[in-house]
C-alpha cells in the first residue's frame, strides 16, 4: 500500500513540476515591486541603457591607448545604489566612455543588497567592483577596514584641476574619515521639510520653524475622516525607522554618542525625542509603521499628507506629473529644529569610492571618472539628470537656480549641514539595526520609550563586544 502511495505522490509531483515549468515559462505576471526607496521613479533600465552597449567597442578590438586617451580599453565596474542619481549615471557614463575609451559597466543595487555585495567583495578581495557609491554612514567602517583606496595622493597630485575649495565643507563628510578621504563627494542631500503650500495657505498656517510648531501644524491639518494626515514618517522596522529617529534626534540637538564617542542611545534626551516621534505619529497615516522611503514618498506624492521631511534629492520629482499628484503645490523649507537650538540641518548622501583591491591601472581610470564627474560643467548635467549637488558653484549657478528655485534653501541647509548626526562610525550598522528594531517596537506600542532604548543599547553592546 505504501509503495503505491509513494508512487502516486511521485507521479503527482512530477506533474506538478511540469505545471510549474509551464507557468514559469509563460512568464510570471507579477514583477517584483521595488523594495528600495526611489527605484519606482526610474524608467526601466533597458530603455536608457542601449547607448552604452551601442557605443562600447567589443572587448576584442578595444582601441589601443593613445596620448589623449591613456586609459582607452580599460574596463571598470561600478556598483551604484538605485537612488535618483542612477539616472544621471546612465546618461553620463556613455559620454565618458566616448571621451576616454574607458568602458564602465554599472550594476544597480538596492540599499541592503549593495551593502552586502560590497562587503562580500571587500572581505573576499575579489575586486568585482572597481567603483562604488558609498553611503555617508559607511565612511568609518570603510576607513577602518581599508576597503576603499584613500584618495589623498590623487587629490594632492591633481589639486590644480579639482577646484577643491568650491566643494562645500559638509560634502567632505561623504567619505572623509580621520583626515583621509576614502570616498569622493558624489551626491549631497539635505534633510528638508516638504510641505503642501496650498493646504497651509488654505488653513492660513505658516510653515513650521520649530519642532513644536511642526507638531501643532501636523495636528491641526490632520483630518482622519477624510484620510488626510499632517505628516508622513518612516516607520518600518529596519534602516528606515532608525534613520528617521536619528534625524529627529538631530533636530532636537541630541546625539547617539556620548562625549567619548561611544554609542549611548538610551539618554534622557533621546527618550524625549522618541516620545516626540510617538506624539507625531498620531498625525501620520495609519500605515506609517510600515513605511520605507518609497511608501513615504508615495504618500506625499499622492497628496494624502500635508508635510514630509526627506532628502532634498526627491524634490524635483514632485513636479513630474507622471509620478506626482501634487505638481505646483509643494514648497520646501529648512527642517525645523527644537526651540532655542542653534540651527543645524541633517546632511547625508553618497560618495564614490575606488576598490583598494583593484588593479592600479583600473584605479587610475576610476579616478579619472571621479575627476571628470566632479567638474563644474559635468555637474550641471549631473543635476539635470536627477543627480545631487556637492559644489557651491552648482547651487549658485543662475541657470540652475532658475530651473530649481529651491537651491538657495539647499545651500543654506548645506552650509549649516551636519553630516555626523548619523554617526559615521565603524559600528554604524549595529547601531542602525538595534534602533531599527526597537524604535519600531515603541511606535507600534510593544514597548515603552525608555525600555525600547534600553533594549537597543543592550543589543548594541552585545554585538560590539
Amino acid at each position: 500500500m505504501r509503495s503505491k502511495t509513494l508512487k502516486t505522490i511521485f507521479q503527482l509531483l512530477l506533474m506538478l513540476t511540469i505545471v510549474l515549468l509551464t507557468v514559469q515559462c509563460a512568464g510570471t505576471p507579477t514583477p517584483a515591486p521595488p523594495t528600495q526607496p526611489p527605484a519606482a521613479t526610474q524608467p526601466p533600465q533597458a530603455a536608457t541603457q542601449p547607448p552604452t552597449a551601442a557605443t562600447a567597442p567589443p572587448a576584442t578590438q578595444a582601441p589601443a591607448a593613445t596620448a589623449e586617451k591613456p586609459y582607452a580599453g580599460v574596463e571598470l565596474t561600478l556598483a551604484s545604489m538605485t537612488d535618483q542619481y542612477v539616472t544621471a549615471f546612465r546618461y553620463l557614463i556613455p559620454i565618458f566612455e566616448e571621451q576616454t575609451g574607458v568602458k564602465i559597466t554599472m550594476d544597480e543595487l538596492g540599499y541592503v543588497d549593495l551593502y552586502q555585495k560590497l562587503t562580500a567583495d571587500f572581505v573576499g578581495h575579489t575586486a568585482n567592483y572597481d567603483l562604488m557609491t558609498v553611503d555617508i554612514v559607511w565612511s568609518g567602517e570603510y576607513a577602518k577596514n581599508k576597503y576603499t583606496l584613500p584618495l589623498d595622493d590623487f587629490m594632492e597630485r591633481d589639486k590644480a584641476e579639482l577646484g577643491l575649495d568650491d566643494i562645500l565643507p559638509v560634502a567632505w563628510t561623504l567619505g572623509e574619515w580621520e583626515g583621509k578621504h576614502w570616498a569622493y563627494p558624489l551626491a549631497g542631500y539635505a534633510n528638508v521639510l516638504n510641505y503642501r503650500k496650498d493646504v497651509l495657505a488654505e488653513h492660513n498656517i505658516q510653515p513650521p520653524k520649530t519642532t513644536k510648531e511642526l507638531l501643532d501644524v501636523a495636528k491641526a491639518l490632520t483630518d482622519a475622516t477624510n484620510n488626510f494626515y499632517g505628516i508622513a514618517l518612516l516607520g518600518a522596522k529596519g534602516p528606515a525607522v532608525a534613520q528617521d529617529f536619528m534625524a529627529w534626534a538631530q533636530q532636537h540637538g541630541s546625539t547617539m554618542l556620548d562625549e567619548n564617542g561611544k554609542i549611548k542611545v538610551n539618554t534622557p534626551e533621546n527618550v524625549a525625542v522618541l516620545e516626540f516621534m510617538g506624539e507625531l505619529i498620531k498625525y501620520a497615516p495609519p500605515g506609517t509603521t510600515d513605511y520605507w522611503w518609497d511608501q513615504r514618498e508615495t504618500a506625499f506624492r499622492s497628496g494624502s499628507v500635508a508635510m514630509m521631511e526627506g532628502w532634498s534629492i526627491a524634490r524635483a520629482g514632485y513636479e513630474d506629473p507622471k509620478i506626482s499628484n501634487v505638481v505646483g503645490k509643494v514648497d520646501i523649507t529648512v527642517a525645523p529644529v527644537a526651540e532655542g537650538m542653534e540651527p543645524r540641518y541633517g546632511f547625508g548622501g553618497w560618495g564614490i569610492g575606488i576598490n583598494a583591491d583593484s588593479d592600479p591601472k583600473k584605479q587610475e581610470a576610476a579616478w579619472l571618472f571621479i575627476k571628470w564627474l566632479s567638474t563644474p560643467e559635468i555637474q550641471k548635467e549631473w543635476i539635470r539628470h536627477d543627480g545631487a549637488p556637492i559644489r557651491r558653484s552648482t547651487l549658485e549657478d543662475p541657470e540652475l537656480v532658475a530651473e530649481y528655485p529651491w537651491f538657495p534653501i539647499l545651500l543654506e541647509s548645506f552650509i549649516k549641514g551636519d553630516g555626523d548626526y548619523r554617526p559615521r562610525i565603524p559600528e554604524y550598522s549595529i547601531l542602525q539595526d538595534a534602533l531599527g528594531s526597537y524604535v519600531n517596537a515603541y511606535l507600534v506600542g510593544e514597548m515603552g520609550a525608555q525600555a525600547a532604548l534600553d533594549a537597543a543599547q543592550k543589543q548594541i553592546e552585545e554585538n560590539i563586544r
Partner: protein
Amino acid sequence: MKTPMIARPRLSLGGELSYLGMLAPLLIFVAAIAVYPLLFSFGISLFKYRLTDPNQTKTFIGLANYLRAFSDPVVITSLKATILFVVGTVTTEIVLGLGLAMLLVAETRLMQIIRSFLLIPMALPSLVVGLVWKSLYNADFGIIPYYLKLLGISAGHGPLGEISTAMPAVILVDVWQWTPLLMVIFLAGLKSLPIEPYEAARVDGASRWQSFVFITLPLLKPTFLIALLLRTMQSFKVFDIIYATTAGGPGTATSVLNYHIYTVGMVFFDMGYAASLANILLAVVAVLSILYVMVLERQQA
C-alpha cells in the same frame, strides 16, 4: 509490501567497484554541496569570526557561541515566534489541504482544471508573493484594509503593522502559498487508498463521516507523515516571506529564528555566531523530524 522477485546479480569485487564508480558523481556532489558546508559551518561556529574585522582574526572559543545563543534574549523571542509560525501554518495548511483534496478528488475535467489553477501560488517565488501581499495589506493603499473599513472593522496600522495581527497575517500568506502542495500530497494519498474497506463499511451501515474518521484518516497516516515533515521543516526555515513583508516587525512580533540568523550573519557579518545559531536551528528541525517519524511509525506497527 512485497517486492517482485527479480534475480539480483551477484556482486563480485569488480561489480562493487563499478557500483561505486557509478554512484561516485552523486556522492561527490552531495559531499561538496551538503556535507562539506555543514562541517565547515560547524567548524566556524567554534570561532569568534567576524568578517568585517579588519585583522580577520579567528579566535577559537569552543562552545561559547552556543552558550551565548541560549542567553540571547532575541533568540528566545525568535524561537517563540518561529514555533507560533510553524504551528499556525502547518495545522492550517494540513486541515485546508486535506479538505481541498477531499473536495477535488473526483476525476472530472472541471476538477482537473480547478486543481491546476490552485497550484499557481506555489509557482510564484516567495519574495514576489510577500511583496504582493505587503501591498494588499498596506494600511493606506491596500485592498484588504479598504474592505475591512467598508465592513466597519478598523484596520489600525494595517494587518502587518499591528502586533496582534502581524503574525496571523504572515501565516495567511504562507497558507495561501503552500496549501496547494499539501492538497497535492493528500490527493496522491487519497487516490492510492484501497476501495475494499469502504465497500465493507458501507455494507456495515457506516456513515460517510464514520468511514472518513475510521478508514480514511488511519489509512492516510503515511501521507500525513510526509506532509507534516515537509511543511514543518520548511516552516521552521521560513525567511523570504518574512523578509519581504515585515522584516521581523512590528517590534519583534514576526522575528523568526532564521531572520535573526540572517541579521547576525549578513548585517553584522558575525559568521561564527550566525553559524552556531544555524546549527541550533538544524538540530531543532532534525530532532522534530525524527520524533515525527518515530511516533507515526510506532502507530503504524
